[in-house]
C-alpha cells in the first residue's frame, strides 16, 4: 500500500473515530438522562457544542504554551489513534502501528497529559495547577495495576505487539483475554475507570470544588480542540482495552459495539459511586486493583 493511500485511510479512520466518539458520548448522556427520568440532551448535542465552540468569535491567549497545550493534547489523542491497529485483519485500518507497539501507546497517552498540564500551567490559574497535581498523582496509582496487567498479558501472549495479541484472541469468546486471564482483565478494567476520569475518580475536574480543573482558562477554539481530542481519545482508549482484553474487532460494527460497552461500563460505575478524594483514590488503587494485578502475574508464573 502506498503511503498516500495509507494516509488517506488514516484520515478516514480518524474521521469515523471522531464521529463515533461524539455520537457515543451523546448516546451515553441520553441513556443517563433516561435513567434519571429525563428526556436529556439531543444525541447530536456534542456536535452542536463543538460547532458552537469553534464559532466563538473572540479568543484570548496567555502565551505560547497556552497555545501549545491543546495542540499537545490533540496530538496525544490523534497520535494514540495513529499508532493503534483499529480493525484486526484489515490492512487498511492498522494505521501506523508498525512503528511501535503496546508500550508506545501506553506511554504516548502521557504526551497529551503533559501538554495539557503545561498549557493549563501557562494559564496561571491556581485551580488548573491544583487539578493537574491531583490528576498526575492519581495517574501514578492507576498506572500500577495497569502495568501489572500489561506485563501479565505480555507474559501470556509472549508479545507486546497489539496486532499479535488480538490475533491470539481470535476464534470465539473463550479465547478472549477476559476469559483466559480474568485477573489481568479485572485489574486493567479497574485502572481503566481511573483513566477515563469519570466518577469516582473525577476529582481532577471536580466542578463543585475546583471549577473545572485544568481547562479552567480554555475557551472557544481551544476548548473545541480539547473536546475533539476527548471524543477521539475515549474511543481509542476503549479500542485499546478492546484489543487487549475483549478479542479486538474484525470490522467497524463490532468495534462500535465493543467500544460502546466498554465506555458505558465506566459511565455506569460513575453513576453508581460518589467521588473519591485523591488521598482516598490512591490507596484504593493500591489495594484491590493491585492485588488483582499481582494475582494475574503470579498465576501465570506458576
Amino acid at each position, binding site marked *: 500500500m502506498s503511503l498516500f493511500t495509507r494516509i488517506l485511510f488514516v484520515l478516514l479512520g480518524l474521521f469515523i473515530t471522531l464521529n463515533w466518539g461524539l455520537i457515543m458520548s451523546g448516546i451515553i448522556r441520553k441513556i443517563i438522562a433516561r435513567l434519571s427520568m429525563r428526556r436529556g440532551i439531543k444525541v447530536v448535542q456534542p456536535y452542536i457544542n463543538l460547532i458552537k465552540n469553534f464559532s466563538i468569535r473572540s479568543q484570548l491567549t496567555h502565551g505560547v504554551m497556552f497555545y501549545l497545550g491543546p495542540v499537545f493534547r490533540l496530538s496525544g489523542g490523534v497520535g494514540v489513534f495513529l499508532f493503534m491497529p483499529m480493525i484486526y485483519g484489515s490492512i487498511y485500518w492498522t494505521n501506523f502501528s508498525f512503528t511501535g507497539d503496546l508500550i508506545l501507546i501506553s506511554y504516548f497517552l502521557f504526551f497529551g497529559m*503533559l501538554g495539557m498540564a503545561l498549557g493549563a500551567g501557562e494559564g496561571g490559574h491556581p485551580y488548573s495547577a491544583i487539578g493537574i497535581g491531583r490528576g498526575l498523582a492519581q495517574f501514578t496509582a492507576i498506572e500500577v495495576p495497569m502495568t501489572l496487567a500489561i506485563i501479565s498479558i505480555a507474559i501470556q501472549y509472549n*508479545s507486546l505487539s497489539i496486532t499479535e495479541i488480538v490475533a491470539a484472541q481470535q476464534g470465539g469468546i473463550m479465547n478472549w483475554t477476559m476469559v483466559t486471564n480474568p485477573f489481568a482483565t479485572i485489574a486493567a478494567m479497574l485502572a481503566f475507570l481511573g483513566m477515563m476520569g469519570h466518577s469516582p475518580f473525577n476529582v481532577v475536574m471536580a466542578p463543585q470544588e475546583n471549577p473545572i480543573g485544568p481547562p479552567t482558562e480554555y475557551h472557544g477554539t481551544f476548548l473545541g480542540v480539547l473536546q475533539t481530542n476527548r471524543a477521539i481519545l475515549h474511543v481509542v482508549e476503549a479500542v485499546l482495552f478492546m484489543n487487549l482484553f475483549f478479542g479486538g474487532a474484525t470490522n467497524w460494527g463490532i468495534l462500535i459495539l465493543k467500544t460502546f460497552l466498554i465506555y458505558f461500563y465506566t459511565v455506569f460505575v460513575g453513576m453508581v459511586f460518589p467521588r473519591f478524594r485523591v488521598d482516598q483514590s490512591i490507596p484504593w488503587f493500591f489495594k484491590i486493583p493491585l492485588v488483582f494485578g499481582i494475582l494475574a502475574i503470579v498465576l501465570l508464573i506458576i
Partner: protein
Amino acid sequence: MVNPIYIVAVLLGTAFLLGLFRKKGTGIIALVALAFPVFVSASWFFHFLSGNTEVLNFFTAGAKPPFSINLQLGIEEALFTMVINVLGFLGYTYLYRDFKEQGIKSTVLFLILIMGLNVLIMSRDIFNLFVFLEIVSIAIAGLIYLKRGADTAIAGFKYLIALGVISTFLLIGIAFFYLFSGTLNIDDFLNSNLPAVKGMSMAVFLILMAILLELKPFPANGWALDVYQAAHPGISAMISSGTATASIFLLYKLLPLSSIDWLPYISIIGAITFIGSNLLGIAQKDSNRLLGYSSVGQIGLMLIIIGMAPQLGEHFNLIFLTVFISHFLAKAGLFWISGIIKKDNIRQWSVLRKNKLLLFMFGFFLLTLLGFPPFPSFYGKWQLIMELAHGSQFIWLALILAGSFFEGMYLIRWFGFAMKEKDESEEKLTIHWEKMIPPVIFTVFVMGASYFANNSSDYGHTLNLIPIYFVIALFLLDFLPAFVKNSLVIASMIIYSILLYPDISDDTLRLVFAGIFMIGGVLTLFAGYSVKGKREGFFPFVVMMYAGLIGLIEAENLFQFFFAWEIMTLGSYFLILRGKKSIKHAFNYMLFSLGGAYLIFIGFALSYFGQDSLDLSIISATTLPGWTYTLLAIGFLTKTAAIGLHIWLPGAHAEAESDVSPMVSGILLKAGAFGLILLFLLMGAEQSEQHSLLYILGWLGAITAVGGNLLAVFQEDAKRLLAYSSVGNLGYILFALAFMTNVGWLTAITYSINHFLFKTLLFLAIGGVVMRVKTHNMYEMGGLIKKMPWSFIAVLIGIITLAGIPPLAGYGGKWLFYNAVLTKGWYFQGALIFFSGTIAFLYAFKLIYSVFLGQPKDKFRNVKEAPIWYLIPQFILMIGIMVFSARPDLILKPIGTMLSQSNYFPTDPLNWEDVTATTNLGYWSGYKIMIVIGVMFVVLLGWLMIMSRKAQKIKQFNIVYAGERPFTPGTTHFSHNMFSNYYKAIGFLSWPVATGFWNGVNLFTHNVADNIRRIYSGNGQTYIVHIMIYTIVIYLLMF
C-alpha cells in the same frame, strides 16, 4: 666524607659555645651548626645510595666496646639522621623568632635535642641509648616550656613524670640485660648467641616496652596528647616528626634483641593505637590535639607495618618508607601551619583562607596524610593492603582501612571547616616569612617523595601521569583569568580525547562512557565562560575529576583503576566543596566516597588473594567470589547513590555551583555505573554464577528508583529535586544492569546516555535560572517562560526525555525496559520501576510549572535569559537528544553487536531491521515515530494557529477568579507543597529512614569516641596508672 661523630661534636660544641656569645648572632650560629649535620648525613645517604653498601662503624673515644660507645651508620641510619637533621634545621628556622625572644637557653636545648636524636639513631649501645633518651626527654621538656602558660607547665610536668616511669622501665631492663648478657652492645649481643635465659626475655621485654611506650600507644598516651595540645606547635612538630622517627627506628633497631617473636604483638599494639586514636580524633575539636591523635594513629600504622614485615617481604621498604615519610612531612607541616595561624578550634581554621599558599599547603598535607593519590602513602597503603590480602590477612586489612576511615572522617571535616566555615575573625593574619619557609620546603619534599614513590612502586610506571601534570600546571597558572584557563582546559580535553580515541575505538562500551565523560566535560565547561574573574582553585580540580574519569576508562589493572577512582573522588570533592552551603554535604560526599573506595579497595585486595597479577581480569578469577563481588558492588553503589547510600547526593548536587551540578550529576555518577558495568562483565556477564547477588541488586535498583523519584516529588528546591531524580535514574541503571541479559544491558546503556543528556541539560538550564533569580526554591519563581524562553525549551525537552514520553529518547529506554523485564522475568521489580516512572511525571511537572509557568513574581520582572554560555551546551545537548531519539540505532547497534559478539551476552539480542528495533516481543522504530508525531504535531499546530490567529494577548491576572481579582502573584502561584495530597496518600514511603540510620551511626561513633575519651582525665597520676596497667596487660598477653 665527614665522620658523623662530628655531628655530635659540632652540635654539642655549639651548644656549649653559645654561652660565650651575647644575644647577637646566636641564632645564625645555631642555624649554621644545624646545617652541618644535614650536610653530613645527606652526603652519607647519597654515598650509600650510589651503590656503597659498606656500613660505617665508628667508636667514640677511639676504643672498642664495651669501653667506648660504638655508632653505626648504614643507609638506614643515614636516611633517618638526614630527615631528622633536615627537620631540625627547618624546625629551628621556624622557631627562629621565638628562640630569639627566649634567649640562648632554648637554642641550646634545641641543639641538644637534635644531637640526641642523631645519637639515638646511630648508637649501638643500649645504655648509651638510655642516656640519650633521657637527654632528649629533658630537652623536650625544657622546650615545652617555650610557650608560657599554666597548661604548658602542667603538660611538661606530666611529660616528665611519664618519661620518668618509662625510663625506669628502660633502666631496669638494661640492668637485667647486662646482668644476663654481660654486654650492653647490641652487636655484641647479637653475635654472641647466648643461650636463652628466662630472665633475659624479661629484660628485653622491659626495654622494648619502654621504647613502645615512648611511641605513645593508645590508650597509655594521655600525657603525650596533653603535650601536643599545650606545647608550641613548632615543638609539637619536633616531637611528632622528630622523636617519633627516632623512637620508631630505635624499636626497629632493638627488636632483634628479643628471643620471642614480638612482631605480632607490635602489630596488635599498632592496630589498637591506630584505630583507637583515630576513633577518638573524630570527636576532637582542638586542632593541635587532633594532630596529636593523628600522629599517634600514624605511628600505630607504622607499628602495624613493622609487625607485618615478614608478610610484606620485599615490599616492606616501600610501604614503610612511604607511610613514614608522609607522616613525617605532613605532620610537621601541619603543626607548623597551626603555629602560624594560632587558632585552637578547628572551626576557626577558616582564617587560612586569608592566605592562599597556606590553604594550599594545608590541603596538601591533609591529603598526604589521608593517602590520596598521587601522594606517597597512597602507594604504600596500596602495596600494604595488597600484600596483606595476598597473605590472607583479611582481618588486618579491614582493621587498617577502618582506622584510615576514622582518620579520614576528622581530617575531611577539618578541611571542610577550613575551606567553608564562616570566617568571623577580623584581624589580619600576620605571617613571618621565615615561618613559611619550612612548610613550603616540606611541600616540595612531598612532591618529590610522591615522584619517587611512584617510580619505585611496582605499578607506578604504568600510570598515565599526563593529566596529573596538567593539574599541577593549572595550579601554577591559577593567576590567569578564568576564560583563558577554561579555553585551555577545553582544548586539552578535546586534544586528549582525540589522542585517546584510537586506543579505545574498538571497545564500544568504553567509547560510550568516554564520550559521556569527555563530551559532557567539554559541554559543562562551556558554562564556565559566564564566570567573570579568575575563579581560583576551580580548574585544577575540574581537570583532576575528568582525569580520574578518563583514567577509569583507560585503566588496565586494578592499581590504575583505583588510582583514577581516588583522583576522581578528590577532584569532585573539591568541586562540590566550592558551593555556598556545601560544607556539610561535601563532607558527607567525601565520607561515603571514602567508605565506598575502601570497600572497592578491599574487593580488589580480595581478588588479588591467591593470584599474581593485578590485571583487571583477576576479578573474574577471584577465589572469594561472594565477598569480592559484594564488596565491590557496594563500593560502586555508594557512587551511584543507591537507596540507603544516597543521603550524600541531594545536598552535594544541589548546593554545588550552577555549572558544577551538571558535572557531578550528569557525568560523575556514570563513573559508578561504569564501575558496575566493569564489575558485572568481570563477574562473567551472562554466565555469572552470582544469581543471588544480582537478584538483590535488582531489587535494590527498583527500590532506589521508587525512593529517589518519590523523594524528588516532595522537594521545594529545584536542584534538590533534580538530584533526587538522579538517584532514581541511577536506580534504573542498576536495575537494568543486574538483568545480565543483552537487552537489559542495552537498556542500562541507553539509560546512561539518556540520563547524561537530560540531566546535564536540566541541571544546566536550572543552573542558568538559579544564577539569574538567586534562589533554589521553586515556589519563589514562576512565570519565567516569558523571560527565559530558551531555558524553558531546554527544560521541556529535558522533562519529556526524563518522563520517557515518545517520541524522545526516554521512550526508547522504557521500551527496552519492558522487553528486558519480560525476558528476564523480574515482573514485580519491573512494575516498581514503571511505577517510579510515572512518579517522575509529578516532579517533572512541578519543576517546569513552578519555575516557568504560573504567575510571574514581582521580584523577577527584570531577569534576563540565562547566559549564552549556558545556552550553547544546552542546545548541543538538545540536538544530541533529538539525534539519539530519531536514530538510536547509531549508538545502540554497535553496542548490541559488541555485547552479543564478545561472548558476554550472546543470547536474545536486539535485532535491527533498518531503523526498527525488534525483539521477539515487540518492535520500536524511533525514526518513524519521530516523523509521524512531528508531522501530526506541525499540522495540528498550524490548524490551531489559523483558527485562533486573532487571539488577544492578556496578562497574568486576567484569569477567571469568581468575579474577583487575584490578590498578589505570590498568593496566586500554586506551588509550595504541591503534592500534599499525594503525601497524605503514600508519603510515608518517603520518610527519611536512611538519613536516620546514618545519623544514628554517626551519633553512635561520636558517643563511643566521647566515652572512650574520658579515660584521658588530664590527671598525671591517672596517666601513670594507664602506663602501668598497659605494661602489665601486654606482659600477661605475652607470657
